[in-house]
């Protein structure tokens, strides 16, 4: 039984289609990523799967339960860390955990024991009696993850788990999420607009843009699907290089001023040959670099835009919105 199965899931808000007929299946035990720029529809998707929003059309099951007709069973199977904080800051960490444990009807002794285990696991045990309002962003995030695990869910949703955290905390959280998946076998579905995050954590990634999934697969396959590694050769005579490289394993060549960018599978194996050929033909090489493609390249390939562009324009739009609001 797959952990999640979505079929043509759609959500529109007053005619605006935020999620547009997406379908995917997540196997049990996977870390699955929804990667896309701000406004792509990631949170809306998570909200539907976690029963917080009713889909406009389409169906989905979580842990085998239909998200519309079996709301309560879905809710029992999932843990969720929302994009925006959802802690009670006027309570202590322990009290937040205890509240959650009681809501999920975990009996007293078990509840106390699990709370203390989980708080230790996320390194908050020594601060458990402090009010959450005294916590840093990273500590709050860790607490929310611990809370989401308290009732031992089969599926854990993490909506932008490391948004706004510093790189060090982010790294810690990544290790932590990977370990959870590894040791407890929890299926994790996370959304992010950080390439590195999806790349580092996820077994499979769905790239989502404007409400539709534009590519889905393992990170390696996605990167391979756009033509392999990126080799950049700087040379006084880039035109000659482009003319020389006609082998079938070259999947693309772009000529720039003073350099060429070549895409190919398994660049590591072909580089020595290329260098020898160029040398033989008397073409000079100023420098040569080989780069594995990133998910950024994948996004660019499928949409013609970079996620960073998207984000900038998203922020710009938000700023304009604020300005309009103030007027």
């Amino acid at each position, binding site marked *: 039984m797959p952990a999640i199965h979505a079929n043509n899931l759609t959500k529109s808000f007053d005619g605006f289609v935020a999620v547009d007929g997406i379908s995917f299946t997540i196997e049990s035990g996977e870390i699955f990523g929804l990667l896309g720029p701000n406004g792509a529809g990631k949170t809306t998707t998570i909200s539907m799967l976690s029963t917080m929003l009713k889909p406009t059309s389409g169906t989905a099951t979580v842990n085998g339960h239909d998200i519309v007709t079996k709301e309560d069973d879905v*809710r029992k199977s999932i843990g969720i860390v*929302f994009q925006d904080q*959802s802690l*009670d800051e006027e*309570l202590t960490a322990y009290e937040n955990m205890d*509240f959650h444990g009681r809501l999920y009807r975990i009996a007293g002794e078990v509840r106390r024991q699990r709370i203390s285990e989980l708080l230790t696991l996320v390194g908050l045990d020594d601060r458990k009696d402090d009010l959450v309002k005294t916590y840093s962003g990273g500590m709050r995030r860790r607490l929310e993850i611990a809370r989401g695990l308290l009732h031992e869910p089969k599926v854990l949703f993490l909506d932008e788990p490391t948004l706004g955290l510093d790189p060090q905390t982010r790294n810690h959280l990544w290790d932590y999420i990977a370990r959870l998946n590894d040791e407890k076998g929890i299926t994790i579905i996370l959304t992010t607009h950080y390439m590195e995050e999806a790349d580092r954590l996820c077994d499979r990634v769905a790239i989502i843009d404007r409400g539709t999934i534009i590519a889905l697969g393992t990170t390696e396959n996605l990167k391979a699907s756009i033509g392999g590694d990126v080799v950049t050769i700087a040379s006084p005579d880039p035109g000659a290089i482009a003319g020389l490289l006609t082998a079938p394993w070259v999947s693309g060549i772009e000529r720039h001023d003073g350099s060429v960018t070549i895409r190919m599978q398994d660049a590591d194996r072909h580089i020595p040959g290329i260098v020898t050929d160029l040398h033989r033909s008397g073409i000079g090489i100023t420098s040569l670099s080989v780069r594995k493609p990133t998910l950024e390249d994948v996004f660019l390939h499928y949409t013609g835009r970079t996620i960073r562009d998207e984000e900038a324009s998203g922020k710009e739009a938000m700023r304009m919105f604020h300005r309009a609001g103030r007027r």
Partner: protein
Amino acid sequence: MDIVYTIWLRNVKRYLRSKSRIVGSLGMPLFFMLVLGFGLNSVVRIPGMEDGYMNFIIPGIVAMSVLFTSVFSGIQIIWDKQFGFLKETLVAPVSRLEIMIGQTLGGATTAVIQGLILMVFALFIGLEPAGIAGFLIAVGFMALIGVTFTAFGIAIASRMEDMHGFQLIMNFVIFPIFGLSGALFPIDSLPAWLRPLTLADPLTYGVEGIRYGLSGTAQIHPLVSLAVMAGCAVLMTVVGAYLFRKISI
């Protein structure tokens, strides 16, 4: 029941922890009690009440304090909405009815505590300690006011996006409810056109009930007051639960 208790516990904990809110919301009732009580005590004679105006308004001011505290407790759901905590509750496998009832009982509890604190103050300025039975009657009516108006606050909060509308509700609903109730004046001496309004105000029956408990006399029969207040508490809880069920975040 566990769930109701859980939600109730959170509300009470938060209340007991917010010392500034407790003290702050004592300010206005104390001010009313002192200024109106001492100011008018020697001027105003209430027919049929021997103890003077001070003893007449103490139940009214206690009711006012319960009213304001409970409406505010109910409205606090909007904070939970804005600070995100409501999602944590709504995504749990519990029914919204349980959440709403827990919230209502929590708000009513804090409102009753607030009223009790005020009663303790009132002891120093002339409230004669009533017998235990009378005291319990008064607390019972305070609880009914608390439930009614916390549920009212929840109903409002379920429909509001932010606190902007709060002032409007205070000015056009809560203050009139307080002003028109028999908290500050005896119903019998009202002009004929005002009487129906006062009798249509649920708080009137709450005030009369508390007054009966604390002073042993009331202008409305306590059983009538009890029936009306209990009816209002049930009705408001139903309305609140209905609107809360449809809350969106």
